[in-house]
């Protein structure tokens, strides 16, 4: 294991271990906690941006999509502004395609508004290495020239490999590199109540 446990804060790890179920998975964020985090993030987004009308929420599928919708609804409640919500698949921009034998499935991209002169807020569920955000920024530039790009990560699990900063973090969850952290829904893929679970030591 190249990664040492001592890199993460000991108090977080102790807390995490307590909640670990027998099958090696634990719920890191339940539906209530996720919604609370998204409400806070929506407030922060409104607070940090002067012209809210210029914001454009762009979700990275699949996990970012339900999150961006909740944030959009919250921003409408707080500021009375209907923000456009786009979906941007980053698969064709990944940097590891050549190394993989099997091609990953492509997800839907839907960009209902132009990105030019807008401040794009990328919304992802779990941010780790930063490579997905890098790919998303490259993809975004092919759609135009945004005035700025900000990033929402519901979970920041660390292990950054690129100089990528998350502007709005739902929760920092220290993990081992080989852990798997996923956002899932109680019914169907991302339907119903959402939760973030950590599979410890699981190989993807």
């Amino acid at each position, binding site marked *: 294991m190249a990664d040492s446990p001592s890199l993460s804060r000991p108090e977080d790890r102790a807390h995490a271990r307590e909640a670990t179920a027998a099958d090696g998975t634990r719920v890191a964020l339940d539906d209530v906690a996720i919604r609370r985090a998204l409400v806070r993030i929506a407030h922060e987004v409104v607070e940090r941006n002067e012209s809210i009308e210029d914001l454009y929420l762009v979700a990275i599928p699949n996990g970012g999509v339900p999150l961006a919708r909740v944030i959009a609804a919250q921003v409408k409640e707080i500021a009375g502004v209907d923000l456009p919500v786009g979906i941007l*698949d980053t698969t*064709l*921009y990944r940097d590891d*395609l*050549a*190394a*993989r*034998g*099997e*091609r990953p*499935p*492509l*997800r*839907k*991209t*839907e960009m209902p508004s132009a990105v030019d002169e807008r401040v794009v807020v990328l919304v992802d569920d779990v941010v780790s290495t930063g490579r997905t955000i890098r790919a998303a920024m*490259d*993809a975004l530039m*092919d*759609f*135009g020239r945004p005035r700025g790009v900000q990033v929402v990560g519901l979970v920041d699990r660390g292990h950054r490999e690129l100089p990528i900063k998350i502007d709005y973090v739902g929760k920092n969850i220290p993990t081992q590199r080989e852990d798997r952290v996923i956002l899932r829904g109680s019914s169907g893929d991302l339907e119903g109540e959402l939760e973030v679970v950590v599979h410890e030591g699981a190989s993807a």
Partner: protein
Amino acid sequence: MMGRDLLGIEDLERADLERILETAERMQEVGRRDVKKVPTLRGRTLVNLFFESSTRTRTSFEIAGKRLSADVVNFSPSSSSLTKAESILDTAMTLDAMDPDAVIVRHKVAGVPKRIADALAAPVINAGDGAHEHPTQALLDCFTVKQEKGRFDGLTVTIIGDITHSRVARSNLYAFSKLGAEVRLAAPPTMLPAGVEALGAKAYTSLREALEGADVVMVLRIQQERLDGCFFPSIREYASTFGIDRRKLRFAKDDAIVMHPGPVNRGVEISHDLADQRPGVILDQVRNGVAVRMAVLYLFAGRSAKREG
């Protein structure tokens, strides 16, 4: 699971076809962007190895490759050393030594892409071989039907023309059958091979019966070189009995679509007005060809997986 090469629809499962069509849908969105280019195959080299000329198919593959940022090299016999009697395999292996990430092969003899695939390290994509298969044409036809009709189950697809010599008919027969549609083949008896029922199609020598209740009317190109042959007496007779015009189209469903792989012989297999309908499904087929070939290149070209066995 799909293999390394795309040689024919016959080798694919329904799930493979659905995966390619779904990927093509995503690629279609790329084609609608301002910047119609993604970096997916950057640094990869694709070779269009066309022993039989086909500007349309070659151009479609070339645009598809370039939209994925691949370098595309066109190699055709007129501009090659084939005139120096270099063998097909020698040519292919010479190209292979330059490490392409995929070789797209068109040849007038059935089975050549398979022979080349067996000899090369690079994956091979069949762009049409003799009367055998033309898989990307069938895929773009299926894609077009899916966009028009939204489904395959319960659809009736009637393919009309020189079935015996048509790789388009053969690939489409496999593709639409696997996807759950009913396939009918209609032709004069001399152009209808024996045994198509064994492949799951219904054969008709009456156009009217073949069109009854059809959702998709697929008209094949009558090859000029066969026109003076022994397959049918005259163009005029073919046009009057099997050529598709508005009057004959009335036998099909009201919302039936008319498709043609191009290039069209107006007034022979299809009437002028049907060939030139705007907006027309026939040009959509061409448009969809790029998205489908992007999907095929994404799924087959430049993967690191090594040849099995």
